[in-house]
């Protein structure tokens, strides 16, 4: 049973990557969009460019994982091909896990490209690599689960895109990407603490600046919690919608 689930998860992710993710528009969008935003901010504040790197990575992984993930399931449901997967000998959590894995793999791939460029420009001195890998993995899991939840919660592709943007864009401005959390008004700090992007940017900032594990561990734990809760909600909604 577990072996069936793991095998199906792997092949569902592989199929999604081939069929949907690794297409030129997705790759260019996944890389160029966060770069463009950060570049615009950096031109206005040239002295703070290096400080934007954690936010740039956070944005890249947010959009890389969730953009396609948020529409893949609703798209397949419309075409009837999601039903093919539901007829296969695979549990619903494993089916959704395969979708999650596909989104994570794509998000981590485009983020690796952005990471390589930023490290080449700013240097890799003082990077806590283990913390960096954990932060990227957990952020990818949390954002991919967010995408999956959006995708199962709506019925049409345009609804998925609208809902995903309603969640992501406020998160982009309140998640500590452009303005550090400490510099925000207290009310906005409270809102920021409800957003997974905040914790991913904080964990990435700690990893890139050789920061301590202490506070980063809390950020990682919150990201893991977001991933688990959003995934469980997505499974539940998909089960209800399938009836």
């Amino acid at each position, binding site marked *: 049973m577990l072996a069936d689930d793991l095998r199906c998860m792997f092949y569902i992710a592989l199929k999604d990557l081939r069929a949907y993710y690794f297409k030129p528009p997705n790759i260019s969008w996944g890389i160029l969009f966060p770069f463009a935003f950060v570049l615009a901010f950096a031109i206005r504040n040239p002295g703070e460019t290096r400080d934007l790197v954690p936010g740039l990575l956070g944005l890249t992984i947010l959009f890389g994982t969730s953009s396609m993930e948020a529409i893949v399931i609703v798209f397949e449901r419309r075409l009837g091909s999601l039903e093919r*997967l539901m007829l296969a000998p695979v549990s619903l959590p494993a089916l959704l896990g395969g979708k999650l894995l596909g989104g994570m793999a794509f998000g981590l791939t485009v983020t690796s490209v952005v990471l390589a460029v930023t490290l080449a420009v700013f240097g890799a001195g003082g990077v806590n690599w283990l913390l960096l890998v954990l932060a990227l993995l957990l952020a990818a899991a949390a954002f991919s689960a967010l995408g999956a939840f959006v995708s199962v919660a709506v019925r049409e592709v345009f609804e998925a895109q609208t809902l995903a943007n309603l969640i992501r864009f406020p998160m982009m401005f309140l998640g500590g990407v452009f303005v550090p959390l400490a510099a925000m008004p207290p009310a906005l700090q409270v809102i920021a603490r409800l957003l997974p992007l905040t914790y991913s940017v904080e964990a990435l900032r700690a990893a890139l600046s050789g920061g301590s594990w202490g506070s980063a561990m809390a950020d990682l734990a919150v990201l893991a919690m977001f991933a688990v809760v959003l995934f469980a909600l997505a499974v539940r909604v998909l089960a209800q919608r399938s009836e």
Partner: protein
Amino acid sequence: MNDVIQAAGLTKIYPAGKDRPPLRAVDGIDFAVRQGEVFGFLGPNGAGKTTTIRMLTGLTRPTSGSARIMGFDLAAEATQIKKHIGVVPETSNLYDELTALDNLVFSMQLYGVPRRERAARAEALLERFRLSEKRDTLFAKLSRGMKRALTIAAALAHHPPLVFLDEPTTGLDVMSARGLRQMIAGLRDEGVTVFLTTHYLEEAERLCDRMAVIVKGRIVALDTPGGLKAGAQEKTVVEVILEDADGRQEKRRLECSDGVEAAVQRALAEAAGKRVLAVNTLGPSLEDVFVRLTGLSAEVMLAEKGGKRGGGYAGG
């Protein structure tokens, strides 16, 4: 002969929605499907055919009742059941972005077909469905008939002993439909059990060993096509072809409620000096049976389905 499907009191009630009351889509049906037969499931739109298939294939949970598929309990062993069945839904639903070959290989990957067998099995399926030349063509670029054929091929990729075919020939051109019907007959010859829903009564009659008619969620008849027709026959109908002295032919139809022999004697008596060219006894058609059971003509049923009488079905 073993039963591969045993359904007992299977019921599905969809709860009330915003603008509709609760719907009892399937209402306590009992039936069994024997190993190796083609079992037809006929009924008008909304009768409960697709809901029944969705329950039997584990896509939706029955509200009450039980079923055993291939010996596995539907409620407790749905994953085991899924390993042993192939399902062809009404819509061809493979992946547009994958080629014909990749779609088949992906199906095999999901069902755990060993890696070393996948390529050969996929090529054999493409050959069988006359799609070898399209092996590297994207599913999106295939014709409707080819998409249907490939969808069926994908359902057979893991060699399931039981296949559910939901309206397999609806919307196909005559030649594609004919090819698929030959393929379904071939499945029976291989010992595969087929659960078939169709709107083409001629198709059902030609392919099915037994069939159930479902109306408003209840099975109203279940028998062989011959048994259904015999059960519907209240009177013997005899057709007599006569020829008068001038060589003019005339066809007369007589109904008699006391058996074939009496009907023939009456027909001969009616000849009255004319030459009797032929005497044929006529039974009811499956369409007559269907109309009697459902109160719906075959034409109306096809129109509801968006089909065209004589379009998809042309014998074969």
